[in-house]
C-alpha cells in the first residue's frame, strides 16, 4: 500500500476547503455583538448565592458556645441567690427555732430546739 504523501494531502484539503463558505470576520463579530446585545447578562440580575466564609462560621460557633456557657453558668451559679423561706409553721412543741443562712457553705439552716413530736397538732390529713 502506497502511503499518501503530505503534498497530496494538502492539495486534497485545499480542494475540499474551496467549497466551504467561511464567514467573514467582520460579519461574524457583527452578528455576535447583535446577539449578545439581545440577551441580558448583567451580574446584578443573577440570583445571589449566600456563601459564608470560614471565619464567619467560626465566629458564629464561638459566639454560640460563649452564650451557651454563660447561660448554663449563670443558671447554676450558687452565688446568684440563696434559699428563701417564705413561711414556716412548726406544729410540734419546741423551745426555740432559728433560721440562718450560712455565708460560707451557702446553706440555709432551720434549727428547732427541744422538739417533741408526741403532741403535734397537725394530723396530716
Amino acid at each position, binding site marked *: 500500500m502506497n502511503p499518501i504523501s503530505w503534498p497530496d494531502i494538502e492539495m486534497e484539503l485545499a480542494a475540499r476547503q474551496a467549497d466551504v463558505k467561511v464567514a467573514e470576520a467582520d460579519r461574524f463579530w457583527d452578528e455576535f455583538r447583535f446577539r449578545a446585545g439581545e440577551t441580558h447578562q448583567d451580574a446584578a440580575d443573577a440570583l445571589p448565592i449566600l456563601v459564608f466564609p470560614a471565619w464567619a462560621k467560626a465566629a458564629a460557633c464561638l459566639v454560640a458556645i460563649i452564650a451557651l456557657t454563660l447561660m448554663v453558668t449563670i443558671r447554676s451559679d450558687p452565688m446568684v441567690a440563696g434559699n428563701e423561706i417564705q413561711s414556716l409553721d412548726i406544729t410540734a412543741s419546741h423551745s426555740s427555732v432559728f433560721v440562718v443562712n450560712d455565708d460560707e457553705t451557702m446553706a440555709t439552716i432551720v434549727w428547732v430546739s427541744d422538739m417533741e413530736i408526741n403532741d403535734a397538732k397537725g394530723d*396530716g390529713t
Partner: protein
Amino acid sequence: MTIRTFAVLTVWLWVAGTSVAGDTIFVRLVAANNAPGAPPAALADVMGDLTKRSQYSNFQLVDSKKVKLPAAARVKLKGGYALELSGPKEKLKLGVFHGKRRIMQMTVSLKEGRPLILGEFPAQDGKMVFVLLSK
C-alpha cells in the same frame, strides 16, 4: 459542620441543659448522735454546718430519696418520718411528718446547689436532720 447543623446542636444543648439543671431534689435523712464513727463521704458537703449547729458529734446517713420537680410526692423515710413535697422549687411546699402527724410545714424557694438543713427532730438515739438539695 454547617451553620444549620451547629444551630440545631446549640438549640438541642440549650433545651437539654435547661430541662436537666435543677429539676431534682435530693433528700437525705441524717442521724445525729455521739456514737463513735467516721463522717460519711455522702455528707461531706454539709458536715461543716451539721457539726457547727448540733450538740452531737457523729452524723450518719440513714436514708436518701430523689424527687423530681415540680414535686407532688410523699417521701417515706426511715425512723417513721416522711416528707411531703409539692410545687416548683421556687415555691416548694414542704411538710415534715412523723407517722401521720404533721410536725412542720414550710414554703421555701430552693436555689440550685444550696442545701436546706432542717434539724433537729427527735429520734430514739439522738436526733434526726433533713438535708434537701436541689440539683
